[in-house]
């Protein structure tokens, strides 16, 4: 594997593991999602720099705008759960309980 790619691959893998193991707070999971998006942004930027191809530089910008949409939606759910249950602790959530 090319050398510097290992660092954002491992950041992506670590953040997805952090998302899978999210323990107490909903916002810890949202922060892990954000670091996944950050590693994807770095990857999408390094790729046109390495291949010296200009027009693929639009990909990270586009990805950042959709990541902003996703972060806003996740924070809206955080605010909604914080207003309903008083905190964002994951053991309070009961919409999907049987």
């Amino acid at each position, binding site marked *: 594997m090319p050398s*510097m790619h290992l660092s954002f691959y491992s950041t992506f*893998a670590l953040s997805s593991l952090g998302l899978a193991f999210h323990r107490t707070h909903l916002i810890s999971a949202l922060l892990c999602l954000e670091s996944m998006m950050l590693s994807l942004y770095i990857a999408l930027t390094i790729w046109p720099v390495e291949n010296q191809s200009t027009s693929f530089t639009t990909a990270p910008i586009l990805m950042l705008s959709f990541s902003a949409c996703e972060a806003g939606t996740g924070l809206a759910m955080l605010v909604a759960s914080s207003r309903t249950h008083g905190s964002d602790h994951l053991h309070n959530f009961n919409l999907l309980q049987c």
Partner: protein
Amino acid sequence: MIYLVLALAVCFVLGGLAVASNPSPYYGVVGLVLASVAGCGWLVSLGASFVALVLFMVYLGGMLVVFVYSVSLAAEPFPEGWVGQGVVGYVVGLILVMVVGIVVGDFVGSWKFGVDTVDGVGLLSVRLDFGGVAVFYSWGVGMFLMAGWGLLLALFVVLELVRGLSRGAIRAV
């Protein structure tokens, strides 16, 4: 000087590790800020200064600020520290997973590096990333409008998600 990129890449991974194993969301935000500063420095040292500035201003100065005050809404008043209960176990476990992944995937010899920079084919009149993002306004105007439409739609999605008092889906009060 050649080890600057290596040091920034290692700081990037350490920031990701801090986000994944955070004892409290405050420390997760610290890790995310560290990772984005290291990533921005990495992109600047490769020469892609426009996308590094976009990362700094939009991501760190926009999205992370919103995350910081959402953390202040949601996190508890007496947070655990890094030397708390089980945090060191998470850090060691995640490092172990990463090491096992590197060994099993046969990436052990991959720290020899020569980094290709933005000026690798010679100086251009418009730099690689400036000219690339300018495509958004000429040939990529459809993508630009779709992204703007998606952001406007996200605004209405957020409005409907936080609506309360039985007119919305999530809130009960």
